């Protein structure tokens, strides 16, 4: 179980750190990807595009490297995955054909499809399990002795 937990953390951290880097380097391209989802009021698009990748990056790093923050990082990653998955599902239901913007900010990248939902469902299960496990350990970790 310990190795499985480590594997989940490694996968989630790799996914979120990997996803964040290009978005941080090309914020306006990522803003365009966010805009194309048509989920946010327009004035919020840049705000989301500037902050989301850093939330992804720090959560990924914390999940991997900072045991005391592991439960918080897992909770944030779980929440982000739920939001991202909802956004993808809504746009697939609308019939909108856009690039996912998950790991690439190139608008000409492969269009998203139901595969993205399957992948995210797997990641959500991993994040939920990691959060639950980390929350138990985290609760003990932050309680002062005595």
């Amino acid at each position: 179980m310990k190795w499985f937990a480590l594997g989940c953390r490694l996968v989630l951290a790799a996914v979120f750190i990997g996803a964040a880097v290009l978005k941080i380097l090309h914020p306006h391209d990522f803003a365009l990807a966010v805009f194309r989802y048509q989920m946010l009021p327009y004035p919020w698009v840049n705000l989301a595009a500037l902050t989301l990748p850093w939330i992804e990056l720090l959560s990924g790093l914390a999940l991997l490297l900072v045991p005391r923050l592991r439960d918080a990082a897992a909770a944030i990653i779980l929440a982000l995955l739920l939001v991202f998955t909802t956004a993808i599902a809504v746009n697939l239901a609308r019939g909108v054909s856009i690039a996912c913007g998950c790991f690439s900010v190139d608008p000409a990248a492969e269009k998203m499809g139901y595969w993205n939902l399957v992948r995210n469902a797997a990641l959500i299960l991993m994040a939920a399990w990691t959060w639950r496990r980390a929350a138990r350990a985290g609760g003990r970790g932050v309680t002062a002795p005595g």
Partner: protein
Amino acid sequence: MTAGNDALGGAAAARVPGGAALAGRVLLLLAAAVACAGLANVLRPRGAIRWVEDWGRYVEARAMKAGIVLAPLSEAVRAAGAQTRVLLDARPHHDYLAGHIPGALSLPYDDIASFFGPLQMKLTRAQPILTYCSGADCDEALLLTQYLARQQFTNVVLFLGGFAEWERGGHPVARGDAP
């Protein structure tokens, strides 16, 4: 980060329930992310991007809001090559004469009253049509697409990249009055 968490979690968490301590750690991570985002944006070598921008001014935003189907370059290439759609050039007629996508017909939005009548005879309402103008920032093709929708044309898509993207892609250009 660990030290910060220790400060947050060590003394305080003994007095607060687990949920509140978790919320504190979540807020700590989010605050750190916002601070990093702000710093990175200020230090960006190519200049900061605006935190708040009105995307509604972009043609693409207006098109998406209007429910117009956007066509990528590949569809314009297919339309020009296999004639799967009638291509309508919405730029001023002198721009059309200077260079246009091969096979495209000129229907300048700024003189639509003169050009639409004769062209209308050649089109059916269900005709697959692709409109374009000079690039992603011009709005003549958008306005033409909306005009055609009002005229009951049911299968019109907008090639947002327009003539600029066509030329950038190295595709052939026709000149003069002939399509």
